[in-house]
């Protein structure tokens, strides 16, 4: 893993791709070269002293060739609001790539990728990388509240990706939760290559996935969130309870953890 850098990255694009959800493309060749799926950027949304802290945002895509990285973020508070107001041509103050990304699936495994809502962001890059690099196929299950909230599917138009979409209200795709599809997939898959699960999304989704994969004894990787100050392992602020006692740091030991390593509540 290459060292992270602090960078004023030129903003190439910053557009709303679903209500309140933005896609920002940044010029950051050094990061594009080394970023792994699941890693994140730590972004200073304003040069003012309030809001003070950086915001962690996952890398949603990285293109080594054109030196660009993508992020996809939802406007939920002051920091993301300020980010959404930035215009192409301005610069974004970023640190990255940070954290440990997803462990790539071994050759003969069957990767199933599950995300809910904005949790979709980091798994887009993961799906692409699995499909392109390892030339294997993967199932991707995305859950949204309703049709208009769906985003990111354009990142998943590569061969080898088998995409399912669920909506809570049934306005698009399967009506229900992504874990319903997961359970079905697991039932019909019993005898083939061992499944390996990757997930990112709201806490209840991750809890449910941990439950299912523990029951079925399947390896699962979860991408977690925690409030951060430094983002680099220096402040010990982003702790999550380890299953083996003590705490892990989301920024440095994660954000991706094996489901069996961490306590979610």
């Amino acid at each position: 893993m290459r060292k992270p850098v602090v960078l004023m990255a030129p903003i190439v694009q910053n557009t709303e791709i679903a209500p309140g959800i933005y896609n920002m493309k940044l010029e950051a060749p050094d990061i594009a070269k080394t970023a792994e799926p699941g890693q994140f950027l730590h972004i200073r949304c304003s040069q003012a002293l309030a809001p003070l802290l950086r915001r962690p945002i996952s890398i949603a895509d990285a293109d080594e060739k054109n030196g660009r990285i993508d992020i996809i973020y939802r406007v939920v508070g002051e920091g993301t609001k300020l980010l959404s107001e930035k215009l192409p041509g301005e610069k974004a103050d970023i640190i990255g790539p940070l954290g440990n990304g997803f462990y790539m699936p071994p050759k003969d495994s069957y990767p199933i990728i599950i995300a809910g809502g904005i949790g979709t962001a980091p798994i887009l890059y993961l799906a692409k990388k699995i499909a392109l690099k390892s030339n294997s196929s993967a199932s991707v299950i995305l859950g949204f509240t309703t049709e208009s909230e769906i985003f990111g599917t354009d990142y998943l138009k590569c061969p080898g990706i088998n995409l399912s979409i669920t909506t809570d209200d049934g306005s698009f795709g399967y009506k229900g939760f992504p874990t319903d599809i997961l359970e079905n997939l697991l039932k019909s898959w019993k005898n083939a290559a061992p499944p390996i699960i990757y997930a990112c999304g709201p806490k209840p989704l991750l809890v449910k996935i941990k439950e299912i994969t523990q029951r079925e004894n399947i390896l699962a990787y979860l991408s977690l969130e925690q409030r951060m100050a430094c983002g680099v392992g220096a402040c010990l602020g982003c702790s999550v309870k380890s299953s083996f006692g003590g705490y892990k740091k989301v920024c440095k030991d994660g954000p991706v953890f094996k489901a069996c390593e961490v306590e979610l509540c």
Partner: protein
Amino acid sequence: MKDSIDISVNIAGITIQNPVMTASGTFGFGREYGDFYDVNKLGALVTKGLTLLPKEGNPPPRIWETPAGMLNSVGLENPGVEKFIEEEWPYLSKLSIPVIANIDGDTIEEYQETAEKLSTLKKLAALEVNISCPNVEKGGLAFGQDPKSAFEVIEAVRKATNLPIIAKLSPNVTHIQEIAKAAVSAGADALSLINTIVGAAIDIDKQQPVFSRTFAGLSGPAVKPIALRMVWEVCDAVDVPVIGMGGITTWQDAVEFILAGATAVAVGTANFVNPTAPLEIIEGIKSYVKMKGQSMESLIGAARNGKNNI
């Protein structure tokens, strides 16, 4: 020629190449920010707080943003002094700058034992004795809120080590001068201040405190005016060197502390916001010294002219 400008200072018998240190707990054990620059450019490095036994720290959340500041409730998570010596010291001891170990304890004996163990380390420059951590059940802050207990802790550590002692003071007091005087009379060679200010935050959706321990420590730019005032007060009361900290984010902030009487400064929360803040502050101080044509030494306390009533 910036680099010909001498901004070295002397703290507790240690000469540091520039007056900019890192604040305990905001710089880990020095490796993390080594990704961004050569930490040997700092004046000195202060470690995360160490305790005799490992401490797992407080449950999440540990961080909460506030206007121009942050609350933390880390709770002194650290590997304990022995594992520190095993795993962190080999890296730290190879640095060319002075390394200062920050120590904490639940009891006076714990402070003493931790100090003793650390005193075996050749090249360790000094101990910073934290009598002001608001995020632990016992000890910590309580020692720093009463002149008598402050005296006792520092006196005990004094007996346990020959290393220079820096007493780290709490801002959560009525009269910080009294604590400062007590620490110095117990043998502190220098003082550092301020530690975090006790604060709180409430989650209005859940209708409960954000932190499991209800209170947490406030740091960052928000506290700077308070820190600066306390540095001024303490420099009035004692004649050992003072390391000023609390919200220092720019070189201008650092210069304010120096003019108020601080011999050195420490950068804490600003590291999180701008990893290269300490370097920018060092360069800024150099430029200021050059621009003013004054020596580093003459700047220390320069804003006090005549207001000093030691």
